[in-house]
């Protein structure tokens, strides 16, 4: 009995290397989400509130990473931002900086795949906010910008939050685009999915794989619970 207990404990023991992978994953996901969200909010707002020429085409492009195979997204990123890519070349020539296969690349890949997800959710939640309330706010002498922060944003908050959590989880689980564009460099771009993938390739690494899977499940669950908690708090305040 005690022996079994001990063996389970030692099985669940997360190694130093695994810890660094986990921390790196969280770091990349957090940075990506923090960068993504303000853009997604701005973007979701414009998409939800305004009509313009070529909107659907524009929207289609933004949503592309949602439907494209992630590996293809990564390949496109490599073509655009790689050393020989039309943007990457300029950056490399001017600043001598290589983007691909760095932590920045991991962050960019995560942003690109999670952005449409967050934007979509943000957009829907802004569409749910009654424009009449915004008009009412402005009629009270409050500028459109302040109206946004005091009316539209708080009312769309739960949607934005769940979009953010969804995006965070997507960042955490991002594999295809990252391995193509950022590689699997340990300590730099090797996130949980990469580590799981490589462990699966190595005989005898099953336990490490299972530990990392458990950890990612736990992180995602915690994120969901926090989101749910914040959401409830907002709703409770309202009634």
């Amino acid at each position, binding site marked *: 009995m005690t022996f079994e207990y001990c063996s389970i404990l030692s099985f669940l023991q997360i190694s130093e290397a695994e810890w660094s992978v986990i921390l790196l994953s969280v770091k990349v996901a957090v940075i990506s989400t923090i960068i993504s969200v303000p853009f997604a909010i701005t973007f979701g707002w414009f998409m939800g509130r305004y009509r313009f020429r070529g909107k659907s085409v524009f929207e289609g492009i933004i949503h592309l990473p949602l439907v494209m195979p992630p590996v293809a997204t990564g390949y496109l990123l490599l073509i655009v931002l790689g050393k*020989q890519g039309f943007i990457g070349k300029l950056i490399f020539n001017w600043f001598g900086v290589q983007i691909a296969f760095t932590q920045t690349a991991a962050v960019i890949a995560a942003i690109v795949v999670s952005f449409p997800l967050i934007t979509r959710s943000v957009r829907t939640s802004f569409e749910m906010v009654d424009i009449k309330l915004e008009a009412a706010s402005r009629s009270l002498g409050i500028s459109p910008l302040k109206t946004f922060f005091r009316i539209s944003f708080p009312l769309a908050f739960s949607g934005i939050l769940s979009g953010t959590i969804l995006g965070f989880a997507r960042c955490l689980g991002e594999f295809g685009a990252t391995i193509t564009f950022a590689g699997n460099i340990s300590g730099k771009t090797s996130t949980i999915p990469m580590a799981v993938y490589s462990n699966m390739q*190595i005989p005898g690494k099953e336990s490490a794989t299972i530990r990392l899977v458990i950890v990612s499940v736990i992180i995602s669950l915690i994120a969901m619970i926090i989101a749910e908690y914040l959401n409830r708090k907002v709703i409770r305040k309202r009634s």
Partner: protein
Amino acid sequence: MKLFFNKFYLYIVCIFITGCKEHNTSKEEIAVFCAAGLYNVFTEISESFKNDRSITFNINLASSGTLARQIEQGIHPDIYISANMQWADYVDSLNICSLRKNLYKNTLVLIAPTNSTIKTISLTKHMDIASMFNGYIAMGDPAYVPAGKYAVESFKSLHIYNKIESQILPTKDVNSTLMLVEMEECELGVVYKSGAIKSDKVKIVGIFPEDIHEPIIFQALLLRDAGISAKMFYDFLTDSATFNIWTENGFSIIP
């Protein structure tokens, strides 16, 4: 409703059983799990084998490890071709194979983009490889891609591993390595000669001496349930008729 479901269920089961049966008895199909690096050779050999026979090949190309895992999970081909001894041993240990043999061997080479300023690098002990390039040297992830494993092994025996360790870009397979060098994302790459000679966007700038790493031997394993055609193909792999195909693709015979 329930009756309908039962019928439906039986129907599905029937299809499944007949499907399996077909696969097991009439050996018109040969299922091969083949290491990805052998794609070109395999296609040519299988074409030449098919010549006067009515046979179709069911081929599954992936890394030796992925294939071994699938076999372990119970998906059994007729033939498993591995680029790596350990994985071949692993599949062999499952007690499902009847025959095993060496095929040909591959050579590990150092490549650079065709337009690179690097001409040749002679891989010798304590050489100053770090001063020869700035960016990344791409290779299969040494943790699980055999080519990467051999590369690290070689660099270690040349005592230059610690000089380039930080510049290694691990990739998920040899094809990715090749692609990254082709795209000039990496200044150098370690691949098999068989892959390098197929690409006109890269050039071979160095050859790894054979005595500094484990030999890169391709092995074929015939599974116990395989039929006669499969056995014939297994034999055909090392037939003298295929010698040219192997060598033209950069492989060499095992002495």
